């Protein structure tokens, strides 16, 4: 034992007869094992997606952010809300800035490098739950959505005016989800955080697209996009875990 800290803290003399020392025994067929890895790498290298995944994490995250900005840009070009110019700039900056921070956080988490320790216990779910709570909080903060630029909920049932918004937000979140999955190297929480980023991005584009400001509409048509993404992914994760192993 070369590590001095081992001797400092552990009664080595009494443990060694019980535990023994490192006896790894080695690998009998190192060549075969290496051949297996080389084959896996050669097969993966043929796929263009693998080249994306094997970019440095900073590059992958930058691509993720770029994807998000492109979706936002697309919304501004193709379907901006008619009253965008009337939206108080400080409120718009606060609202979108808060969402942007959450989106960036989700992208960072979704593209976490694999040499970092995996999150365990409550930490696994902390960020997505924080995002959902923050989204509902932002949607319901008094004063944010009751200015001149907002119109109250449209006539008709909640479903009739919330469904098109939810669909729009969900659809524009999909490219973000797909891109993040393409860039993900296989982190166990990659799917969940990608879903979170997609749901948050859906909320950002909806804020730039939809002028309706009724609380029920914002909850059912906007915030629900994130719930569907995150809740759906949690269900999928749960189903995958419950699936009988081979």
């Amino acid at each position, binding site marked *: *034992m070369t*590590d001095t800290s081992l001797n400092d803290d*552990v009664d080595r003399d009494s443990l060694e007869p*019980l535990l023994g020392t490192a006896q*790894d025994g080695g*690998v009998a067929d190192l060549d075969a094992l290496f051949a297996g890895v080389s084959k*896996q790498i050669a097969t993966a290298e043929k796929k263009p997606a693998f080249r994306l995944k094997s970019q440095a994490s900073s590059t992958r995250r930058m691509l993720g952010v770029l994807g998000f900005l492109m979706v936002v840009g697309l919304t501004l070009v193709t379907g901006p809300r008619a009253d965008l110019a009337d939206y108080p700039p400080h409120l718009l900056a606060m609202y979108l800035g808060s969402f942007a921070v959450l989106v960036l956080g989700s992208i960072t988490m979704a593209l976490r490098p694999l*040499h970092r320790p995996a999150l365990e216990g409550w930490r696994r779910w902390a960020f997505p739950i924080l995002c959902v709570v923050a989204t509902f909080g932002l949607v319901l903060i008094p004063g944010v959505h009751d200015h001149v630029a907002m119109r109250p909920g449209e006539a008709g049932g909640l479903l009739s005016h919330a469904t098109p918004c939810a669909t729009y937000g969900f659809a524009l979140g999909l490219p973000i989800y797909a891109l993040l999955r393409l860039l993900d190297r296989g982190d*166990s929480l990659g799917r969940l955080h990608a879903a979170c980023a997609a749901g948050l991005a859906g909320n950002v584009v909806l804020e730039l697209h939809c002028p309706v400001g009724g609380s029920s509409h914002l909850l059912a048509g906007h915030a629900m996009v994130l719930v569907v993404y995150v809740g759906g992914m949690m269900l999928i994760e749960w189903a995958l875990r419950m699936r009988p192993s081979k």
Partner: protein
Amino acid sequence: MLPWMLIRQKAVACARMADATDEELMAAYVAGDDAAFRALFERYAPIIFGMTRRHLRDEELAREITQHTFFRLHGARRDFRVGARLRPWLLTIAMNLVREHWRKKKRRKHVDVDVDLQQAPVAERSRMELQERATLVQAALARLPDSQREVIELHWFQERPYREIAEIVGSTEGAVRVRAHRAYAKLKVWLEGDVQ
């Protein structure tokens, strides 16, 4: 170039590989030197295999995880920065894969201990008794919670300092020390009980 010159050149390159530090090999590998990857594999595959085999008690699975660790290392190679140490990197990737495996197999939390603990060897250290002793140690390790077992694996069997273990498992040095102390205390009680 004459064949003997090629052989000599290869021998010099191999000697250089053997002398190189992990980080030098990794840097060479990132720069495109496949021989450096092979050298890293030869250095670390036995360590990772031994570690995961002891953890999972399944040779085939340990082989898979060893291979997958290096596959992931290849995918993540562009993240390696000058000044970083490779060993914690690799061990973290391997440990993450082991944790992922346990998470998937959560229902198999209680490992069957098919060893007759009363039949433990006492004094003689014959080959067979050593094997039985190893089985008892494995069974005792399997009884530990995952978070304590991984710390014992890295501290006792891989001889890593607490600071590095904290880096690998994503915790603080103090928390790792506490986990280790609790685990060693349990192991001592269990294994001493077995011997008696």
